[in-house]
C-alpha cells in the first residue's frame, strides 16, 4: 500500500472551506489594483489627435475630427491598455473593474467640446 501519505490531506480537506466561491451569493474577490479593466474617456482633455485609434489592435476606437466625436466599442476592446499609454494628454484612463456583460452590443459615443 503506497497511499497512506494522502490521509492527512484527506483529513484536512474535510474541515477546510471550499476553494471555490459561491458566486453570486457571495462576492468575488476584488480585482488587483493593477488589473486592466474598463476604459474611460475624458472629453475635456482629449485633443482628437487619433493616436489611440491608430494603436488600437482591435480597431475599437474611431476618432472623427469633423464631428469632434470619439466612438468606443467596449465589445471590440481587448483591454490591452495600449491607448491609455499612447494618449499624451492623459484623456484615457482605466479602472480595475471587469467590463460587465450587456444584452445589446452598443458602442459609446463621446463628444469632445471645442
Amino acid at each position: 500500500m503506497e497511499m497512506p501519505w494522502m490521509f492527512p490531506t484527506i483529513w484536512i480537506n474535510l474541515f477546510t472551506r471550499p476553494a471555490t466561491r459561491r458566486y453570486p451569493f457571495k462576492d468575488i474577490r476584488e480585482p488587483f489594483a493593477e488589473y486592466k479593466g474598463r476604459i474611460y474617456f475624458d472629453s475635456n482633455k482629449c485633443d482628437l489627435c487619433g493616436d489611440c485609434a491608430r494603436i488600437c489592435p482591435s480597431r475599437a476606437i474611431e476618432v472623427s475630427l469633423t464631428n469632434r466625436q470619439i466612438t468606443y466599442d467596449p465589445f471590440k476592446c481587448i483591454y490591452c491598455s495600449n491607448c491609455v499609454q499612447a494618449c499624451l494628454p492623459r484623456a484615457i484612463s482605466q479602472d480595475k473593474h471587469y467590463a460587465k456583460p450587456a444584452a445589446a452590443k452598443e458602442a459609446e459615443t463621446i463628444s469632445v467640446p471645442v
Partner: protein
Amino acid sequence: MKMARTVIPFGPQHPVLPEPIHLKLELEDEKVVGVTPVIGYIHRGIEKAAELNSFRQNVSLMDRICGICSFIHALTYCQGIEALMGVEVPPRARFLRVFWSELSRTHSHLLWLGLFADAMGFESLFMQCWRAREIILDISEMTAGHRIIQSTCTIGGVKRDIDKEMSNEVNRRLLAFKGMMDKTISPVFLHDPTIKRRIAGKGVLPKEQAELLGAVGPVARGSGVSIDIRQTGYAAYKEVGFEPVVETAGDGYARTLVRIREVYQCLELMPEALSMMPDGEILVRVDGYPEGETVSRCEQPRGEVIYYLRGNGTNNLERLKIRTPTFANIPALLVTLPGCELADVPVLTLLIDPCISCTER
C-alpha cells in the same frame, strides 16, 4: 490469418481534447496500426491578418495566437522586430521578459498536468493542479493586469514594471505555490502507482528517432535530447543561468517528469530574474519601420517556436511565418501511436501537449 482493419475517427471533438485535432486511427482489433492526422479545424488566418495590421498592432495579435503561451509568442515577435530595426532592449526589460516567460510556462505546464490527470480519469488531481494554478494566475493578474494573456511585451521592452514591494508579494505567493506542488501535486505524479502503470513504458520515442523527426520541447527532452532554445541566452537567460531538464527514458512518464521538473525550475528562475533585475528603463522609443528579413526563436512550454519576419520599410510586414512546437511534435506523435491500444490513444495524444490553436494559427 490477416485481421480486418477498421478506421476509427478520434476527434476533432473528444472529451480529452481541449482543442480540435482529428486522428484517423487504423485498428486491428484493439491495436492501432496506422494514424493519419487531419488538422485545419481552427485556422484563423492570423498570418494574413498580421500582414494587414500595422507591425505595432501585431503584438496584441501575436499575444492571442494561443492563450497558454501568449507572452512567449509576443516576445518572439518583438525580438524579431527589434532585430530588424536594430533596437537594444533595456536590461531591466530583459529580466522582466524572463519573469513573464517563466510565469506563462508554469501556468501552461500546470494546465497540462491537470488535463492529463483528467484524461486518465484522475479528477481530484486535475482539480488540485488547477487550484494551484490559480496562484500563478493571480500573480499574472497582479503583475500584468490580466490572468491569461499578459500582454506586457511590446517592441522595445515591456509595458509594465514590477517594483520591490510587488516582487516580495510575488515571492510570497510563489512559496505558497511551491508548498502546494510539494504537498499535493508532485508526490502523486512521482509516486502514485496508477499513474505509473498508465504511462510508464507507453509511447516510447527513442533518442535517435526524436532527433530524426525534429521533436522539440519536453517531448525531445524526455527522450534524452538536450535541446532548449533558452540555452542560446535570449532575453536575460544568459545572465540568469539555465540548464535544460532532460530525462532519458523516452516514454510518457519521462515527458511528465520533464514538465514537473520544469515547473520547479521556473520556480527558481522567476525569483532569480526578479532579484537580479537592474534598475533603469523598461522601454525604449522605437522609431521607423522594419526592413529586411530575420528569424526569431524562443522556447515555449511546448518547445521551440520560430518566427520568420520580412519587412519592406512600411508600417505593414510583407510576410510573417510561424512554426509552432506542436506542429514539430505531430510526427513524433505519429511514431508513438502505432502498436498501442485504442484506450491509450487519448493519453498518448495529450503527452505531446497538443496546442492546435498555435499549430493552425
